[in-house]
Structures are given as C-alpha cells and as structure tokens.
C-alpha cells in the first residue's frame, strides 16, 4: 500500500508530465491579458460592489407602458433576438450578442406574462429558438401565469440575414411594441425600419460597431458595449452589475496601458505593442 507521501509524489509527477507536454498557444502578453480578465471578474464576484447608478440607456424600464398599450389594443409584442443565432455559421461576437439579448427578452417576457400580452420572438437559429422558448416559459413560471404560455410564439424566420429582414418588411401584423436586441449587420436598416413602421414603439440595440448609425436612425439607443450591459439596469442581481464593473476596470486598465505604452514608445524607451499583441512595431 503506497504511503500518502508516495501518492502526493506521483500526483506531482503526473501534473509535471502534463505541464512538460504543454506549451502556451499565444505569447505571454495575450495569455496574461485573458487570465487578467478572469481575475478581475472573479475578484468582483467574490466581493461584489454595491454602488450603482441606474441609467436605463435603452428605455427598457418603460416596457410596462408598452404592455399596457398592447393589452388595451389586443395586439402582441415582438422581440427580435437579432440574426446572429447560437449555432448557425457566424462569428463568436454575433453569437455572444444573442446570449446577451436573453436578459432583455427575459425582462420583456416577464412584463408580457404579467400583462397577459402574447409575445412573438423572432430568431434565425434553431438553438436560439429553444433558448428563447425556455426564457419565455421562465417568465411565465416566475409570474405564475403558465396558462398564458400557449399564446406566445417563437418564430423561426429562416436562414440568412436577408430572410429575417424580408419577413419583417412583408409582415402585415402591427404589434404594440417591438424590441430588437442582438446582432444586426447589413440587414439592420431594413429590419429596424420594418419593425419601426409596423410597431407602436421600437427599442433597438446592437453591439455591431458598423451599425451604430442604423440603430440611431431607427430611434434606438443601445449601441456598442451597451448591448452587453443593458441587463445590469434591468435586474437587481449583483452578477449583472459585476460584469459591468469588471468591464469598467478593464477599460481603465486598457486606457492606462495605452497612455503609458504611447508615452514609452514616444520616448523611445520601449514599444509594448509586440509584448501585448504580438505585433511587430513599425
């Protein structure tokens, strides 16, 4: 029977062998940057910051008024999760935006369930459909209105961004309010204009940097990073706020790194570009 010291020795040898057979995929700078993000986030999760000034940049706290109008007029409310999806062929940023849109959907779903307003959720991805259905159901569970669940629909708009825009432009329904939060790219103006034309009010947002103008033209105000942090103003859950706090700290670190790096590079002491990004200095 091996002694505990022998067991620990074997374990250390095993870990050592694994480490010996491994190497870093990136340079030390990018690896530390990724681990730094985790460190800042975990540190805030362990010790959440309680100070918070709510801003409601997207105007989503006024969703109750939209629901009252919908209930009065007997119409539904549309939520578009953008056209990034979760498993369709697109990039990670578009997928992340679909995930980031779920808290907004959850907020609208709870308000709709409470007011007895049917919800129509538009998505172009089968997995996003399943997730959206679960989110809508959770809204009914929270408000104990499961008997109303059958009135809401999750609509698969088809593959491709053009299809989603085409559906919105040609639909004859006039919802009381429309919410479009998620990945919107070349179809943004078409989709938002289609929703804006048919709906009583429109709340729009996307984290696609090239579509800021489209969102502003449609009257939306959730642009850029705001699409990820809008949930922090909707929920009292400190986890949502922790994410924004972590991002704020990282932005501060980023700004300091840019300023100090630029000063060092200008003085000719050190060019941190190669260390941080693995890029060759010009």
């Amino acid at each position, binding site marked *: 029977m091996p002694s505990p010291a022998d067991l620990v020795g074997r374990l250390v040898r095993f870990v050592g062998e694994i480490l010996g057979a*491994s190497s870093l995929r990136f340079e030390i700078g990018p690896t530390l940057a990724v681990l730094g993000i985790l460190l800042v986030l975990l540190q805030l999760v362990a010790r959440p910051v309680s100070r918070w000034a709510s801003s409601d940049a997207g105007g989503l706290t006024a969703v109750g008024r939209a629901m009252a109008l919908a209930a009065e007029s007997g119409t539904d409310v549309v939520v578009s999760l953008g056209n990034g999806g*979760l498993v369709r062929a697109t990039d990670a940023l578009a997928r*992340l935006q679909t995930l980031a849109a779920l808290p907004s959907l959850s907020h609208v779903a709870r308000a709709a369930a409470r007011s007895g307003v049917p919800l129509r959720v538009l998505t172009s991805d089968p*997995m996003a459909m399943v*997730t959206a259905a679960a989110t809508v159901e959770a809204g009914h569970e929270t408000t104990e209105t499961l008997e109303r669940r059958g009135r809401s629909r999750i609509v698969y708009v088809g593959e491709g961004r053009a299809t989603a825009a085409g559906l919105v*432009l040609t639909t004859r329904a006039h919802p009381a309010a429309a919410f479009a939060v998620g990945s919107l790219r070349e179809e943004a103006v078409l989709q938002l*204009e289609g929703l804006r034309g048919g709906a009583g009010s429109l709340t729009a947002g996307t984290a696609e940097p090239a579509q800021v103008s489209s969102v*502003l033209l449609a009257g939306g105000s959730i642009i850029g990073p705001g699409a*990820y942090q809008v949930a922090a103003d909707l929920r009292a859950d400190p986890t949502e706020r922790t*994410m924004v706090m972590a991002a704020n700290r990282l932005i501060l670190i980023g700004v300091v790194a840019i300023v100090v790096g630029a000063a060092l590079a200008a003085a000719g002491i050190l060019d941190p570009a190669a260390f941080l990004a693995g890029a060759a200095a010009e």
Partner: protein
Amino acid sequence: MRRPVVAALVIVVGILLLADFLVVNESLGEIAGLVIDAVILVAAGAALAGVVSLAWRRGYDLWRRRGDPIGAILVLVGIAAMLVAGLRPGAEGAGDPAVGWLVAALLAPIAATLFGLLFVTTIVAARRSLSGGARDAVLLVAAALVTLVLLLPVGGEVGDWLAQAAGWTLAVPVAAVFRGLLLGIAILAAVFAARTLLGIGATDD
C-alpha cells in the same frame, strides 16, 4: 437538483475550453475536440428537429386550411426542392451543382434585391428620424450630409482640399470614435464570454 448539475457541467466545460484555448496539449486538445464535436452534434440535431417541426407545422396549417396557404406551400416546396437536389441518388450533398444553382440563381438574387432596398429605406429612416426631432438623429444626418459634400467628385484645388478633409475626417475623428467603440465592445464581449464560460449568473435567466 437539475440546476447544480447543469451549472457544474457549464463550469467544467468552460474551464476545459478556456484551458485548451490558452495551452497546447495533445490530451487536452482531444478532450476539447470531443466536447466541441458533441456540441456540433447537438446543434445539428436541433437544426434537423427545427426543419422537421417547420415542415410539420406548415403542412398541418395547410391541411387544416388556416394561416397563410401560399407561404406554407412555398416553404414546403422550398424544403422539398433543396432535399431532392442534395439527397437524390448520385447527388453530392450540399456541394451538388443543383444545390449550387438553387442558391446562386434563386436565393442570392432575392437577397440582392432585398438589399437593393437599403438606399430607399435609409432615406426613409433619415426622414422619419428628422421629423421626430431626435438630437442623435439630427446630428447623424448632419454628419452624413457633410461627408457627402466632402466626397463630391470635384476637381481642381477645391477638390483636393475636399479630398484631404475627407481623409483627415476618416483617419482622425472617425477612427478615434470607432477604435474607442471597438475597445469597449471587445472588453465587454471578453467579460461576457468569461462569465458564460465560468457559469457565473444565469444567461438564460
């Protein structure tokens, strides 16, 4: 009981994928590959179930004579055409010329036609925004008009000055705002991805 198991699974898979992203290790890579293959299988299953559900729903609507019959017929014919083109005996699947023709001759022109509406839709959106009097929209349209003037194809000294001004606008204020926006988006996306990988908070509520 279900939630802790799901949360634990998310954390284990998240940390595994993150470790594989940062470290090159054969064993780790194989396990991460296995997890990714499983995700692809689930996604493919969901996509297949989605198509079957769509066909069933449209077929049932047609059978019960409710909803939009023309739309239902078009959806069913479209699904059937793609399936026949890609799965008929001797076909090469998604790379079959018949599938390529359906995409190139039907889908691509329809999408292009739709995006052709962008010009008109953008003008309509600008007009509507201006009539609403929103400060952001007024500023945006004013900036667009200035850019239009800067990009006018004018020759001579005035043309050179306009071209230089357009280049400076693109290289300095627009690039500064765009880079700031990109920096913010990248950091928020990284934090959001880290949060999802570590199972912090409930993204599906």
